[in-house]
């Protein structure tokens, strides 16, 4: 007698069934969804060594960042698609209410012309920076070794498009009050030429071609994003408040809510990485590689922000504190 056992229906997916608790909606719809990690020698059901297969074998499977079970990763916020939309629709409703209300009150007409010039130089070109974050998160989304990581990256890419969209909106709106300072038209020139932006531009251009998924994660989530958030959101928002720009201060505060959420999952992933011997050194090397460029970018940008003495130091320090809080 060698009859195989007859399988019985289970209460959940077979891969979750051994856990002795009811799976959450998050677990049901988010876990173990990448089939391309199943066979390390052939990511795709195609030739094991054509160009795209080599890309995934080199930059994902052979990453120096190692873990025996990437699929164990969980987003601490347990966000699923439908809760993401509920949450962000609420956030957008709040912000558009703010846009509407402050527009009614003639917010922009009360801004000083010199500040408007600062916005044209130091605020509206940020859409290029936000777009590079959008692209980087989309890269992590397609390269991450676990679907629970990819999902965080997908929502993060969308949040970056959200920030970009706010900037585009405000660029246009500000141009209605200040029509002759290149708002909505000169941002590319500022991004490509103005000294304030060249540190960030160099940082993201170089980091966008850091193809190893682990390095891309460490560079963007642990170094670059905090640098951007502490300067182009937080320090700019503070500068705005000192210049009567209530709206920009409230806008960057709202965007920082997204950033805090990003740091929660990035921190959880970093902690998971640190469970495996050898990863700390790998991550510290990457941080050591990207931190100087990020510091330089932050200082170049914050150095020209009006009424923001010490902002550069504070922003660099905040990035380090975030990493130190993770044990890095």
């Amino acid at each position, binding site marked *: 007698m060698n009859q195989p*056992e007859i*399988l*019985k*229906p289970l*209460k*959940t*997916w*077979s*891969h979750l069934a051994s856990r002795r608790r009811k799976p959450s*909606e998050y677990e*049901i*719809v*988010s876990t*173990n*969804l990448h*089939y*391309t990690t199943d066979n390390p020698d052939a990511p*795709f*059901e*195609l*030739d094991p*060594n*054509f160009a*795209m297969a080599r*890309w995934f074998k080199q930059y994902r499977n052979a990453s120096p960042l190692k873990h025996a079970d990437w699929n164990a990763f969980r987003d601490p916020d347990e966000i699923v*698609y*439908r809760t*993401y*939309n509920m949450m962000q*629709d609420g956030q*957008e*409703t709040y912000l*558009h209410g703010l846009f*509407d209300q402050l*527009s*009614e009150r003639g917010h922009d007409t009360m801004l000083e012309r010199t500040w408007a010039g600062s916005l044209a130089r130091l605020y509206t070109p940020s*859409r*290029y920076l936000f*777009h590079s974050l*959008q692209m980087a998160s*989309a890269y992590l989304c*397609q390269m991450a070794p676990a*679907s629970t990581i*990819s*999902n965080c990256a*997908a929502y993060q*890419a*969308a949040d970056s*498009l959200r920030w*970009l*969209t706010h900037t*585009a909106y405000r*660029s*246009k709106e500000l141009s209605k009050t200040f029509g002759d300072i290149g708002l909505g038209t000169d*941002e590319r020139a500022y991004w*490509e030429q103005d000294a304030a932006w060249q540190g960030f*531009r*160099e940082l993201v*251009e170089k980091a966008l*071609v850091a193809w190893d998924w682990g390095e891309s994660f460490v560079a963007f989530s642990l170094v670059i994003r905090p640098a951007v958030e502490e300067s182009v959101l937080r320090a700019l928002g503070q500068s705005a408040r000192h210049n009567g720009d209530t709206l920009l201060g409230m806008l960057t505060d709202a965007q920082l809510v997204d950033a805090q959420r990003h740091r929660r999952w990035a921190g959880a992933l970093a902690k998971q990485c640190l469970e495996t011997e050898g990863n700390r050194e790998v991550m510290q090397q990457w941080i050591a590689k990207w931190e100087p460029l990020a510091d330089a970018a932050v200082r170049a940008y914050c150095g020209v922000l009006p009424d923001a003495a010490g902002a550069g130091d504070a922003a660099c320090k905040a990035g380090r504190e975030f990493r130190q809080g993770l044990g890095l």
Partner: protein
Amino acid sequence: MALLERSEWYDIARATNWTPKYVTDSELFPDDMTGAKGVPMEKWEVYDEPYKTSYPEYVRIQREKDAGAYSVKAALERSQMFEDADPGWLSILKAHYGAIALGEYAAMSAEARMVRFGRAPGMRNMATFGMLDENRHAQLQLYFPHEHCKKDRQFDWAHKAYHSNEWGAIAARHTFDDLFMARSATDIAVMLTFAFETGFTNMQFLGLAADAAEAGDYTFSSLISSIQTDESRHAQIGGPALQVLISNGRKEEAQKLVDIAIARAWRIFGVLTGPAMDYYTPLTHRKQSFKEFMQEWIVGQFERSLIDLGLDLPWYWDQMVNEFDYQHHAYHLGVWFWRPTVWWNPAAGMTPDCRDWLEEKYPGWNDTFGKCWDVIIENLLAGKPELTVPETLPVVCNMSQLPICAVPGKGWNVKDHPLDYKGRTYHFNSEIDRWIFQQDPVRYRDHMTLVDRFLAGQIQPMNLMGALQYMSLAPGEIGDDAHKYAWVEQYRNNPYQRKAA
């Protein structure tokens, strides 16, 4: 002043190309991932997506859509759909979820590739929403079948199929990896969004939603309709990409991608949708035959969108249309015969009334496929069911990963289309499959079909039990006839008489 109209600021939000300085353009957009076919960055900036949306609109509308789909599910949670539905319908659900849910998730990665490596800013933004859409479709199509897990082990395959070496899962992965998962951003725009989504899934989902309502499965109907509204938006990423390619002298390259994509999509449709429409769906619920459906949607509608874009019909168009008459009948026969190797219970769809319908829709069916079913019925009536299950493996196509098969009986036309390439002989179902291989052999060269693996000794023991283990299929989840052979009784002492013409 109040809120600005979207049209006032939309162009600013999609002016995001810049000239890199600290790395080169070709480093930032490597050809393996971008696939721009030599069309430079600035030429892509005329890209204009016909369906425009923005972040705040997206999250609002999608929130509303999800509220609709999930509330229908909640309201019908205690309905008797599962108990009352025809077993053929449950088989359609199982096959669908297993073949689609993780494929949708793979499409999220493909959309993400367009976000990172697409050359047009509008494409990158639209693909960001497309990426979220595919995330949604994977989650919905995991959450909805999950409630059936406790009733039927085969529903586990909604999640499990893509992680297995079950033959249908291998075929699905090979197809979808080739259509999008392992393609560059530009190829994805053409092959996934234009050819596959505009051409096939969009209309498939419309048809499936109608079938679900007909079968009394209103949860699935509302789910699929809701997904279709997303598809019809992000499917429009491909059209303007094709326009950029064509207007920059890359029509030949674009045409080839479209031709490969349609051919690959047609095969996977033939094995999944063909049997579902012409056999699994109870006769009283059938609105049109699979052939009529293909004629209306692929020949009638998609043909027009190809021509409108300035593309030609694929070189194999007539041959493909000719296959509408038989290919899916051959696949159905194979799936039913090899039924222990699938994660659903194939419905034979073989009552005398069904056969009359098939003869009407496909004149000559009884003289060809019907002859095989006559033998199956004879063996079942004689109490020899062991003769209706396989002992051997079929010859599998090195492209579609499906058995090489065509018309049996009168009009026999089964033929291997072999190709010798660098010391290995490959086998193909048709000239079309062989042509795809020849376009880019390194992409397919060292892949092994399930049968190649069997012959190479990778599957042990070398019998059906070994094959089932390799496919992660065990008793309790392996397929059997959906209606437990009840239909066979209609033939006892009552051989099939063809209806007079």
